[in-house]
């Protein structure tokens, strides 16, 4: 990756984070923590990895992305808007009556959303169905799905993992956002799903373990995913919940709460400073 590419990705990630804060603040509700922890991934997917066309969101041969952890859709919406699927101004209508930006993703309302999700554990199964279809129809599109680390406590996730391996879905890339926190507290305290990579390997996955804020590692992992044949691929990324907004980082209280006006100003000031720093690089 060139320095310029990396700079662009970093700038995109800053803008995704600003979109998250803008939209959740305007909605007075939403899930900033897990949206921010995956912001770098959203930026990478929509800038670099996914073969998609904003002018033709239903393009049959596009890569699919299923946000299995649907509550972090402010991050997805921001990335879609920045990629040109709909106006960035729409982000401020999040969760409002009449808005196409529902509290959880709706494939029939928002351009670029490939699957309606929100009930945890189901998106990954739907991604399997899309990948299976790609195999049946000899399509070369790929399917990506992002799960929360708490989400994998759902039994259905492991039913889907079995399915992916059984049907050799090497066109499927499962990404797990391991920020270590779920609504009620630390994963370790609530219901420990660790060790995640070992579990995935036991289910037949090829696994990459990366730092979810490192674009070089992301690039390497996705290249490996594309090159892997015969088995599905998983990326377990270590992340920081709330990343980019100091007072939200690693704070479980920011799982599903909107910032008030003062908190909003503080968050936006931080993110603007980060963006200025990136742009000065």
């Amino acid at each position, binding site marked *: 990756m060139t320095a310029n590419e990396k700079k662009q990705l970093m700038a995109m990630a800053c803008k995704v984070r600003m979109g998250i804060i803008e939209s959740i603040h305007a909605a007075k509700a939403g899930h900033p923590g897990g949206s921010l922890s995956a912001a770098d991934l959203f930026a990478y997917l929509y800038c670099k990895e996914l073969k998609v066309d904003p002018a033709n969101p239903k393009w049959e041969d596009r890569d699919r992305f299923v946000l299995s952890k649907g509550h972090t859709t402010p991050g997805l919406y921001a990335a879609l808007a920045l990629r040109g699927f709909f106006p960035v101004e729409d982000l401020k209508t999040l969760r409002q009556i009449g808005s196409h930006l529902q509290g959880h993703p709706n494939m029939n309302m928002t351009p670029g959303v490939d699957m309606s999700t929100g*009930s945890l554990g189901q998106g990954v*199964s739907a991604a399997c169905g899309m990948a299976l279809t790609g195999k049946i129809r000899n399509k070369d599109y790929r399917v990506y799905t992002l799960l929360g680390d708490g989400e994998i406590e759902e039994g*259905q996730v492991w039913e889907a993992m*079995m*399915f992916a391996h059984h049907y050799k879905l090497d066109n499927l890339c499962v990404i797990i956002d391991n920020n270590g926190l779920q609504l009620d507290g630390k994963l370790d305290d609530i219901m420990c799903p660790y060790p995640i990579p070992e579990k995935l390997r036991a289910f037949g996955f090829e696994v990459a373990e990366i730092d979810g804020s490192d674009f070089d590692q992301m690039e390497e992992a996705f290249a490996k995913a594309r090159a892997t044949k015969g088995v599905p691929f998983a990326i377990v990324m270590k992340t920081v919940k709330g990343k980019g907004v100091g007072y939200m980082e690693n704070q479980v209280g920011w799982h599903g709460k909107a910032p008030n006006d003062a908190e909003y100003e503080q968050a936006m000031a931080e993110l603007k400073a980060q963006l200025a720093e990136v742009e000065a690089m």
Partner: protein
Amino acid sequence: MADVKKIATRESYGNALKELAAQHEDLIVFDADLAGATKTGIFKKAYPDRHFNCGIAEGNMMAVAAGAAAAGMVPFASTFAMFAAGRAFEQVRNSIGYPHLNVKIGATHGGISVGEDGASHQCCEDFALMRSIPGMVVMSPSDDVEARAMVKAAYEHVGPVYMRFGRSAVPVFHEEEGYTFQIGKGEVLQDGADVAIIANGLLVAEAVEAGKALKELGISARVINMATIKPLDEELVIKAAKECGKIITCEEHNVIGGLGEAVCGVLSEKCPTLVRRIGVNDEFGHSGPAAALLKQFGLSADHIVEVAKELCGK
């Protein structure tokens, strides 16, 4: 009816899938380790590359089917009614119903005629559960001819469909030739003016028998086969209510939430009419031979006749 051919509608389902698949490459089938029982095994034998066993994981199966539909396939997802509508309810609701995806759910072993397996497998709640999902078509055929036509109609329909098929063999009373099936349209099998009997599933054959018996008793019963529970043929229900004045509904389902309540819902708002609901009276079933259970639970021609007589004051 000794010489009448009898076929279980689950068998019809498997056969119809196989017939349809020849013309439609986008048709695929999912099952959850019950292909031998749901009869999707018939399809599998002919099209092994288009049949995907999901193992004993019904929730995953429904959402996988949703993903396949989102990518352009027309999946038929099959398991027992108990697990399709019951266990996987929330997957059906959120991954199929909410995005209105083109998934067809073929649920077999509905009702207490499952027999010996007992209450854990006798689903009498599926109509209620599936009816409550916006945009879901809910149907239950009465015989082989109707069942096969229904599967084809479900394929043609764009959007989610729930079909309930039975385990036990039931008499084939429709004539194949010239037969057409339309989603949302009831069928008058016998005309009458004293009472209307509206039934679905294996209760239709019982209703027809009851209709004949009532005629001999001097009661003119209109017998209606209401294979589509949702969207309900309201026009036919209201017409029956106006012309007969009294209604009996018959279904192999809890009297709560099924065809009976769907009929009551329409009539209470648009044409208040006395209705008697024949069904499972808010209790669980138990093990036993299907025929004996149906009799015990009052899901029989004899019981329909009794209720009709009482309703008509005879």
